[in-house]
């Protein structure tokens, strides 16, 4: 019988949910504009209730993303839990060693999988990629949204750069979502069809041992790998 080990706090899960909903909506409403001359772009615009409604949806979801970003920044700076999570996500020298060993392991040059902590290079790449993407998207998006206001400060080319940046980053976001995030949490061996910990916050003992050995050992020390019944018994 597999033990369920708590891995993500409620706050973490709420942030992930907000991010997921807002980014999905932003992608649907954004790409339908970027590809508005294509058949599927037109179909999406129709489903969104027309061209103007598409714009409103995009801006509304952007507000949600903005709130999520502010919530996250407050979380990692003001709460104890957030600060510790953020420290865990900071890139370290060992990540590069892990990356090298991970590749050697996949090439069968090493028999042992590198032992990962709570966040391996995989999660860190994901986190920091999205951290930068969202910063770029919010900045360029705000300039484009409030262009009438920014006309007083910014030269014309700044709007062209923002436009370019917004569209270019959008492609990177979708690439990372499809080929990195979706692969890691859905399609990769051991996670198919989905790693459901984003929903309830629990992972199985087996999964944690396999994927985050160092974290598992730490949890074991704290006695969190045993269920409530076992502890009481």
């Amino acid at each position, binding site marked *: 019988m597999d033990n369920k080990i708590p891995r993500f706090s409620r706050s973490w899960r709420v942030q992930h949910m907000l991010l997921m909903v807002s980014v999905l909506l932003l992608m649907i409403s954004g790409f339908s504009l970027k590809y*508005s001359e294509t058949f599927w772009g037109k179909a999406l615009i129709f489903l969104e209730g027309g*061209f103007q409604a598409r714009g409103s949806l995009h801006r509304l979801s952007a507000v949600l993303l903005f709130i999520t970003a502010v919530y996250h920044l407050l979380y990692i700076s003001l709460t104890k839990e957030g600060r510790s999570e953020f420290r865990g996500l900071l890139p370290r020298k060992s990540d590069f060693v892990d990356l090298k060993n991970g590749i050697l392991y996949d090439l069968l040059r090493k028999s042992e999988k590198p032992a990962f902590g709570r966040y391996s290079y995989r999660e860190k790449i994901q986190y920091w990629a999205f951290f930068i993407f969202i910063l770029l998207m919010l900045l360029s998006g705000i300039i484009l949204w409030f262009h009438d206001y920014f006309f007083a400060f910014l030269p014309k080319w700044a709007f*062209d750069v923002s436009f370019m940046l917004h569209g270019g980053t959008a492609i990177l976001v979708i690439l990372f979502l499809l080929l990195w995030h979706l*692969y890691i949490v859905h399609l*990769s061996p051991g996670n198919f069809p989905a790693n459901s910990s984003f929903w309830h916050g629990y992972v199985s003992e087996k999964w944690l041992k396999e994927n985050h050995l160092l974290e598992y050992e730490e949890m074991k020390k704290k006695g969190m790998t045993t269920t409530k019944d076992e502890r009481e018994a």
Partner: protein
Amino acid sequence: MTALLTILLAFFQLAPSSQNTRCFLCHGKESFGVTEQGQFRSLFVSPREFAASIHGKFTCVQCHVDVKVIPHFIRPQKISCLQCHFEGNTAGAPVKWMPERYKESVHAKALEAGNPNAPDCETCHTTHYVKSPTDSTSTTYRKNVPELCGRCHKKQFEAYSKSIHYKALESGVLGAAVCTDCHHEHDVLPPSDPRSSLSPEGVVRTCAKCHSDTLLMEKSDVPVQQPQAYSESFHGIALENGMVKAANCTSCHGHHDILPASNPSSPINPKNLPKTCGKCHPNADQNVAKGKVHIIPGEKSAGVVYYVYTFFKWFTLIVLVFLFVHIILDISGYVRRKYARHE
């Protein structure tokens, strides 16, 4: 006898102008005319000019069918071009879409509504001296079109005559835009009509017709990328999706008196840009002049945008390769480890 008759008939058929000599006995005199209600009305038709016209080989009575005896004493009925120019005519008159399209035009509608000044076929094509529009002496020859329309549309002609289009036309660029290139010749429709070449969406296509023509633009030394760049811009995409309030070509460039940016009175002169952009964007100031307009990100002329574009192009490609390699490594490692365990 029959042979003689045939020859005679053939003679009259082949040489209609000799038949017209009877008409020109009177109508060929420059002083010929009638006085109607105290006003002299000339009935002169120049035999030389008529012979040079596209209808010069026809006889007068082929159009004036109600003239049976010469001299005639009753005033012939006003003739219609459609007497011959109809589908299935035997006179060999070319039948094109023009008359049908004309019926939809503002001109035909005005005529129908009783405006005596509204133009009919002959207003532009003349009555007796109709010539092909390719004939440089024709009223409908490209170079003569502005003056032709300007006979009625005086204000518009005055504005147009200041424009770069007219200047180019004058200097011999026959492809330079004249009235009919934008307004059409026959199906002149009001800009409020969605079918019009001058509706907000129509304007873009109308300007692009010439401004995306590489040969023509090279001749006039005008960059050819503008229409494409516009259609990829914010304004272009919005307009394409039905936001008619989005700026189209004429919103910034004006229409009849279009001038290049180098001209100080042009609305797109850098000094005038704040005012031009300010029509829609109230905060616009000198900042709007800092940067290029009509840019294509993938071309070096786009300046800083080109470098951002190039960075993203290569970075995205590298990321794509990295992500794919990672997935392939991960899956192949998993499969091979599994296989190795079964060995």
